[in-house]
C-alpha cells in the first residue's frame, strides 16, 4: 500500500489529538492506542473515499468515533473501573495539586453520558466547531449544542458536589449549595 506524503503527514498531525479523544472515550490509554491504530488502518483502507482538500482531522475523528461505537462499547461495559484505569499511562508527572484536581475532573467526565461527553470534548478540547462536531457525531448542530450545555451543567453539578471546597468560592455560596441551592 502506498501512502501519499500529504496523507501521511496529515494523519501523523492528527494522531496526538485523536489519542486524547480516544482516551476520553474509552478511559484507558492502551485501548485508546489500539483504537487509534485501527482508525489509521481503516482510514488508509478507505483513503479513496477521502476527498483531498477536505477536513482530514474531522474525517479521522468520525472513523474513530464510529469504530468505538460499534466495537468498543461492548467491551467497555466489562471494564467500568473508572478510577484506576483511566489514569494509567498518564502518571509521568508528579501528583501535584493540579493533578489531583485533574483526576477528579476525569472521574467526573467519565460519569457523563457518552453522547454528552464526546460532544463536550470535541467542542471544548479538540477545537472542532459545532458544525464539524455535528458532522462527526452524525446529528444536528442543535443537538450538539444541547448536549454540550447539558454536559457542562451536569459536570458542574458532579464537581460541585464532590469538590465543594474548591468550586465554592466562599462560605455563603457553600451554605447555599449545602441547603440544596435554594
Amino acid at each position: 500500500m502506498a501512502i501519499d506524503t500529504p496523507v501521511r503527514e496529515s494523519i501523523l498531525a492528527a494522531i496526538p489529538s485523536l489519542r486524547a479523544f480516544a482516551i476520553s472515550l474509552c478511559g484507558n490509554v492502551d485501548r485508546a492506542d489500539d483504537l487509534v491504530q485501527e482508525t489509521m488502518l481503516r482510514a488508509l483502507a478507505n483513503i479513496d473515499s477521502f476527498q483531498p482538500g477536505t477536513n482530514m482531522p474531522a474525517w479521522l475523528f468520525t472513523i474513530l468515533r464510529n469504530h468505538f461505537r460499534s466495537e468498543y462499547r461492548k467491551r467497555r461495559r466489562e471494564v467500568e473501573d473508572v478510577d484506576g484505569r483511566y489514569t494509567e499511562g498518564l502518571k509521568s508527572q508528579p501528583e501535584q495539586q493540579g493533578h489531583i484536581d485533574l483526576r477528579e475532573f476525569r472521574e467526573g467526565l467519565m460519569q457523563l453520558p457518552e453522547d454528552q461527553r464526546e460532544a463536550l470534548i470535541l467542542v471544548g478540547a479538540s477545537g472542532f466547531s459545532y458544525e464539524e462536531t455535528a458532522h462527526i457525531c452524525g446529528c444536528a448542530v442543535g443537538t450538539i449544542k444541547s448536549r454540550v450545555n447539558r454536559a457542562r451543567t451536569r459536570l458542574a453539578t458532579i464537581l460541585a458536589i464532590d469538590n465543594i471546597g474548591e468550586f465554592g468560592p466562599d462560605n455563603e455560596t457553600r451554605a447555599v449549595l449545602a441547603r440544596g441551592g435554594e
Partner: protein
Amino acid sequence: MTEAAPPAPKGPSAKLGRDIQAKIGQQLRTMYDEVVKQGVPDRFTELLNQLGAGDQKGKR
C-alpha cells in the same frame, strides 16, 4: 466560531455557574493537552512506515 451563550441562570448560583464553566473549560483542555503533548508514539510512525514502505524509499 459561533458560541451562542445560553442565558445566564438567575439567582445565587449564577456567578458560581460561570466560575465552574470557566474551570471546566480549563480542566478539559489541560486534560486533553496532557495527551496531545506526548506527540506521536513510535508505534504509529512505525506502522505508517511499514504500510507505506512502497513509497518511502530513501526517506524524505
